[in-house]
């Protein structure tokens, strides 16, 4: 097997005395679909922020694709191929879907500094935007202003934006949060049909959705890794059931 795409070594993210992430080590092989589960406050999103660079780790090392990214700012990590979606929808609400995609696409290109250039996308941009919108199943919505879309469509656009840069690794932070069951299965379908070359790490509360999508599961609790197992094992794991449902009480 080739070198893992992502290696975390004893990563700590502390907010003053609170250690939201407390010594997490993680190895994710290239192309894996990985879920990070755990109860509220387990440190899942903080761990994502450490990987994507929004909150660099207080201690510990993060290696991505052969680079030490522990201290890099988010935009440098994005340049290396880390792309993420946000738990709370984070789009450009007053711009059209097309403009959202254009911003996503040009983030890593010198064209973003074209001060007086034409606003229209060139042919290769048109193709890539169409491909990403297709993958997220919102191809026909390109001219809509984002704030006029339904919440489910905005979640799909989140994924399309993360995809258009052709990332090496995609971090999905609760992609299906707040969606109706039919919208959830749509999101699951979108994630399932992603290019297998992309490494996907997924935070999800809905166990059924998460376990149906991934090869391997990391369960976090109180800032630490509790269990790492394939999905079949996780369903039966006593410790996982305890942190989600509470310890069984013996009379």
């Amino acid at each position: 097997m080739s070198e893992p795409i992502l290696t975390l070594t004893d990563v700590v993210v502390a907010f003053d005395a609170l250690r939201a992430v407390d010594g997490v080590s993680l190895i994710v092989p290239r192309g894996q679909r990985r879920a990070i589960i755990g109860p509220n406050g387990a440190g899942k999103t903080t761990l994502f922020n450490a990987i994507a660079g929004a909150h660099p780790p207080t201690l510990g090392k993060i290696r991505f694709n052969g680079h030490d990214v522990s201290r890099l700012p988010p935009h440098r990590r994005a340049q290396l191929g880390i792309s993420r979606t946000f738990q709370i929808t984070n789009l450009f609400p007053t711009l059209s879907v097309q403009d959202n995609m254009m911003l996503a696409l040009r983030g890593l290109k010198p064209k973003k500094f074209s001060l007086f250039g034409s606003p229209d996308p060139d042919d290769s941009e048109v193709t890539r935007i169409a491909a990403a919108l297709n993958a997220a199943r919102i191809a026909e919505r390109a001219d809509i202003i984002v704030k006029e879309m339904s919440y489910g469509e905005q979640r799909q656009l989140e994924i399309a934006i993360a995809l258009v840069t052709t990332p090496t690794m995609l971090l999905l932070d609760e992609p299906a949060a707040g969606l109706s069951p039919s919208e959830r299965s749509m999101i699951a379908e979108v994630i399932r049909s992603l290019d297998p070359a992309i490494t996907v790490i997924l935070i999800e509360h809905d166990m059924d959705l998460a376990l149906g999508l991934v090869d391997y599961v990391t369960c976090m609790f109180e800032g630490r890794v509790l269990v790492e197992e394939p999905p079949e094992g996780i369903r039966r794991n006593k410790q996982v059931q305890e942190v989600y449902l509470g310890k069984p009480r013996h009379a």
Partner: protein
Amino acid sequence: MTQPVSKTSVLAGMTSRALVITGLVVIVAACLPMVLSSYQVGLATEVLIFGVLAMSIDILAGFAGRTSLGHGAIFGVSTYVVVYATGQAGLSPWAGFALGVLAATAVASIFALLAVRTSGVYFLLLTLALGMIVWGVCLRWTQVTGGENGMRADVRPAALMSHSAFYWAVLAGAVIVSFAMWRFVRSPFGLTLRGIRDSESRMRSLGYNVPLHLFIGFTVSGIFAGIAGGLYAMFNNFVSPSTVALAQSVEGVLMMIAGGVGTLFGAFVGAAAIIVLENIVSSYTERWLMVLGITFVLIMIFAPEGIIGKLRAITSRKVR
């Protein structure tokens, strides 16, 4: 994908409808000196100059979501440098003008370095404070700036001595500069400013260096404010600390708001409204400032999106 035919660019990305409207407006504006008195032509010239200043503020306020209260100072620095260079240093008006714009750009880039990491009310206060520093320097550095008395110099080139000729020259300049600003806010770079306005955190995670983009946006906006300041030097042949004072920045911001934040060309409408109001009302009553204040309150209540913003909203409703 289907592309409507009328959408194809006729001239540098303008639709044929926009081209016709722009053409008509420019022709009407060019005919004004034939019907107006020379005093009124002077007012019209002032409207164009302050319209450019208000537009340069709109680049930041309407597109990057950062309202600057320091642009009057950037504008005034250019005016000071142009007057000094032609009067004291004996340079030609054109060389003075170039130096003025250059100085304004330099000042804007210093402002930008300090202000780009802030937003909202902090950006407002920081740019206000920086503008006050410039005002303080102009007031105290008496040997160079003439202190409170200001400086006088014959800046206007001989060919543009008549009111109409100068008006036409400013009109041509304003058209070129407006076109440049319009291209700027629509460009791929302009889109990044709108992205920053909507979500900085998303921009960062997409790979944008947000402070760098704001720095460039602020500096370019300063170039345009500097051009307006240089034109003002030629218009007035005189400069004093009131040209760089806070009131100047505030007036520019109010013109932009009255016209419509983010509408760009609304700046000219806002400038016209305020300058005409100031000059007409002040000839009838000493309490013209009160009338101006009431007008603003009314605009904010009935057209918070500004005059042009309101008109756009009405017309687009009719089309639907």
